């Protein structure tokens, strides 16, 4: 089959690889009908997250049709079922899964010893996302083996196009969880850094959860225009001061809730000197992340407020203003998304026409063009926001 394979920094190729096989009774194999490139894939494209090996298949936003099931799938799935695959692989049985903390499932990371060393505890296995999370082949491919398939799936009905359902795999529940973690009340201003696909979903989620005002921050006019379309007030951080504008928009008090949809690769700009320093330190491996957005959020957030961080950080961040964080009494909530905790509700909202996540798609291309699309998405060329690949 064809698959997008990581060969090194900025080197993803469309290779021919052997087809996946059932390895365990709980496995299923799907024929992929649609998959997407995620902002998280860009961290791997840049080799900023350790633990990739040449030959790894990329991709964790995937859906398709079940073509084979192992003997242990126990009737939960059958051939012909249409499923979206959550990016977090879950067993459904461990303590964490029982609590709905799916992204920290204790069972599914088959290379636990690595994650135990690096993070203190292992987290769930993830598709196409380094050997720290199991080194599972990803779904930017024609076929995908889904381990623990009896639990790791979201069944979706016929009659709704792939484009509306695909993002249940990751970015829609990610934006949703980011907003839910903010405990939004109707008087809240929610400020959202980053208007990439995750930011766009967080904006819609904050609206659906009843925020009074949503403020979206980015530097790309096309993404800001998409944020405005959903009723957000926008700030272009290349032209205006984020701190001043946020104060203005909140009567000097600062937003109650702040969401970081940017993560470890914050934009580097001479007018933001801390980003230059972070970038330099990153190069000589003195720091792994560029936490400009975290610093800004802690500084501007209203005392007693909540900071929600879906943006991915990989290792060590310097100069976090812990003094401000502690004295202002802020709360921070983070995490890879517990996808299956939210998807029943979100699927129902899609079915009822409350939201149509396909608004974010700007490019749909054959899988073979994947390698070019990584560059287009990374460079924000052609007003690209979200790429869907068709195997």
């Amino acid at each position, binding site marked *: *089959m064809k*698959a997008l*394979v990581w*060969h090194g*920094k*900025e*080197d*993803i*190729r*469309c*290779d*021919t*690889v*052997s087809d*996946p*096989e059932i390895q365990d009774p709980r496995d299923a194999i799907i024929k992929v009908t649609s998959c997407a490139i995620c902002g998280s894939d860009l961290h791997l494209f*840049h080799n900023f997250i350790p633990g990739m*090996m*040449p*030959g790894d*298949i990329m991709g964790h936003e995937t859906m398709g049709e079940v073509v084979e099931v192992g003997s242990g799938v126990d009737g939960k799935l059958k051939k012909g079922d249409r499923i979206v695959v959550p990016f977090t692989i879950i067993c459904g049985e461990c303590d964490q899964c029982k609590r709905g903390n799916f992204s920290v499932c204790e069972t599914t990371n*088959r290379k636990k010893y690595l994650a135990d060393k690096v993070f203190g505890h292992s987290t769930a296995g993830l598709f196409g996302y380094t050997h720290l999370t199991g*080194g599972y*082949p990803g779904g930017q*491919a024609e076929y995908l*083996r889904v381990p623990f398939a009896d639990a790791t799936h979201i069944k979706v009905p016929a009659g709704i196009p792939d484009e509306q359902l695909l993002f249940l795999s990751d970015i829609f529940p990610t934006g949703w969880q980011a907003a839910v973690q903010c405990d939004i009340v*109707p008087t809240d201003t929610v400020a959202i850094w980053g208007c990439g696909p995750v930011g*766009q979903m967080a904006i*819609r989620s904050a*609206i*659906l*959860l*009843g925020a009074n005002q949503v403020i979206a921050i980015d530097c790309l*006019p*096309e993404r800001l*225009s*998409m944020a*405005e*379309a*959903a*009723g957000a007030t926008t700030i272009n951080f*290349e032209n205006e001061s984020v701190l001043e504008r946020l104060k203005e928009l909140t009567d000097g008090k600062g937003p109650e809730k702040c969401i970081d949809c940017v993560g470890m690769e914050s934009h580097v700009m001479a007018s933001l000197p801390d980003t230059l320093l972070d*970038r330099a330190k990153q*190069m*000589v491996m003195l720091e792994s992340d560029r936490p400009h957005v975290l610093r800004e959020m802690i500084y501007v957030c209203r005392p007693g407020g909540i900071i929600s961080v879906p943006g991915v950080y990989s290792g060590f961040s310097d100069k976090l203003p812990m003094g401000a964080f502690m004295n202002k009494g802020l709360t921070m909530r983070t995490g890879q998304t517990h996808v299956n905790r939210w998807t029943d509700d979100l699927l129902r909202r899609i079915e009822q*026409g*409350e*939201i*149509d*996540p396909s*608004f*974010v798609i*700007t490019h749909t291309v054959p899988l073979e063009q994947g*390698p070019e699309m990584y*560059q287009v998405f990374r*460079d*924000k*060329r*052609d*007003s690209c926001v979200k790429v869907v690949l068709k195997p």
Partner: protein
Amino acid sequence: MFHFSNITRSKGDPKIVEGGSSLKQPSDQLARALGWFSIGLGIVEFFAPRRVTETLGMEGHETMVRAFGVREILAGVMSLSVDKNAGLWARVGGDGLDAAALLSGLTPDNPKKGNIALALLMVGGIAVLDYRAAQDTKPQRPGPNARRKLYPNRSGFPKGLQAAKDRAKEMIQHATAGVTS
């Protein structure tokens, strides 16, 4: 065909059968080569500045050579990173500094004039490569004045923004009334 990466695959996981083409350009390879060269030269300059000054008949300038070594290493690391373009421009600038320093040593009474002339030639050659690689790896990110598509109609709410807000209000009222919807 043999693919080295297949050795590390877990049993049963897909293995590469036939490699597809890479989008890496010759200029990327050149940037890589220059990056490693820069680091190598930097290490020599930093750890053995005396060898360098002796070869050039410029004894007494070891501190400067050391500093140049640090510069070479940093520019090299940058040329190997995703910001290779900045690294290569830093190298072009560094080539200028190298040439200036060498010229300052090209005095009539320097017995190693010949070596300096050779070194200048080399710096010139490398500078041409650095410049070419820097030109060819220009970042592809559109500038602030690039033409862009805007997406003012993509609210994502099929029933409109107001309906989404009303629905949110409804949900909150239900929740506060202790009713589950």
